[in-house]
């Protein structure tokens, strides 16, 4: 493990453009590998100056158009807010609303450190033939006494290979907003065709399910499965 750490430090220095002398390292394997890593960096392909400048010009023009459109939409409000008296009133109102919302949300009383969601998952089978669709059902139950609102729902879910703990496939987070009343349960289903992000069939072996955290009121809500879910591809 020490070798990899020394190599990583050296590589990060090379990528940061620092003067690294692999030839001064004692370990021959790291010396040669780091020297080769430096060689790879000299072979990296750079965008042409023409492409750089033409894309930049195009994007700046788009940025301009976006801002003009927004400014046109908000123009009347902005011009009002630019008057000192209105601006002061608006600032007081914003502070009152923010403070009131925080108070109402209970953020001054408790922090949602305790269990927020009860998470259960299951696959429709425990063993799958190669290529067979894996059906994963996940349910989340609000175990707090207040309504919860999550963005980016459903959460990120990864299918992890058990022997190396690497993700064989990751379902991206959804873009929905989800509200859950106290004691309410929501369920979603994902289907996995046993292929990785590049369309390659996953190898046979044991897999388990892992869920990424959700965000709620600026805090991370850990999605820990009540019981681990595993399945096998044969």
């Amino acid at each position, binding site marked *: 493990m020490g070798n990899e750490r020394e190599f990583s430090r050296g590589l990060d220095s090379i990528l940061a453009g620092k003067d690294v002398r692999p030839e001064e390292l004692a370990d021959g*394997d790291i010396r040669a590998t780091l020297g080769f890593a430096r060689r790879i960096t000299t072979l990296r392909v750079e965008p042409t100056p023409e492409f750089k400048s033409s894309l930049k010009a195009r994007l700046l023009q788009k940025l301009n158009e976006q801002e003009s459109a927004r400014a046109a939409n908000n123009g009347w409000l902005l011009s009002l807010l630019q008057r000192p008296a209105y601006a002061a009133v608006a600032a007081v109102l914003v502070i009152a609303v923010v403070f009131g919302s925080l108070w109402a949300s209970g953020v001054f009383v408790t922090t949602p450190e305790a269990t927020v969601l009860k998470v259960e998952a299951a696959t429709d089978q425990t063993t799958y033939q190669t290529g067979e669709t894996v059906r994963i059902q996940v349910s989340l139950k609000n175990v707090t006494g207040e309504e919860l609102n999550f963005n980016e729902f459903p959460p990120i879910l990864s299918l992890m290979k058990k022997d190396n703990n690497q*993700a064989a496939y990751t379902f991206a987070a959804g873009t929905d907003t989800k509200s859950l009343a106290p004691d309410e349960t929501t369920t979603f289903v994902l289907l996995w065709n046993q292929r990785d992000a590049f369309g390659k069939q996953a190898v046979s072996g044991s897999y388990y399910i892992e869920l990424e955290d959700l965000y709620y009121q600026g805090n991370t809500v850990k999605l820990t499965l009540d019981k681990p879910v595993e399945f096998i591809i044969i």
Partner: protein
Amino acid sequence: MLLISYLIMDSDESNPDNAALFTQLYDEFMPKVFRYIIYWVNDKHTTEDLTSAVFEKALVKFKTFNVAKATFGTWIIAIARNTVIDYFRRNKRYETDLDQALDIIDGDDSPDERIIKAEELRKLRLCMERLSAPEKEIISLKFGGELTNRAISRELRLSESNVGVIVFRAVRKLRDCIGWQNG
């Protein structure tokens, strides 16, 4: 600093600093996005198209960028990664044209140097194709996107030490592969 800059860009539509901030981020990260993509598609024109698509998406999605969750570099490379995945899904192919190596080498090198570099690049790409998908992914994130091991570990949901081990072993594999070819 980036958070402050982001708030300025998000909140004040008429702020002339928006263009300056955008230019600063573009100049720093566009080459990284380009280099990351070209590791996968090996074609200059496709890489240019996909790089353009990444920054156009970034311009539209900038409001969703959350500095508490990721740095701008990690965020933009994540968009690049998804763009590449979408590209391969759409095109239903996963092969690369290795003969384009000479075409994608530009710059100030002499013709002889270009030929040598192109040959080395061709060998490197051949050897890259022999890496596993996760190894290739990590090498392109490291050498193309210039992400730290920690950022890669978050993006790929691996431990940081695991990423370090994979980078080291993958570079060693490439070294051995090219050494074997030269020998």
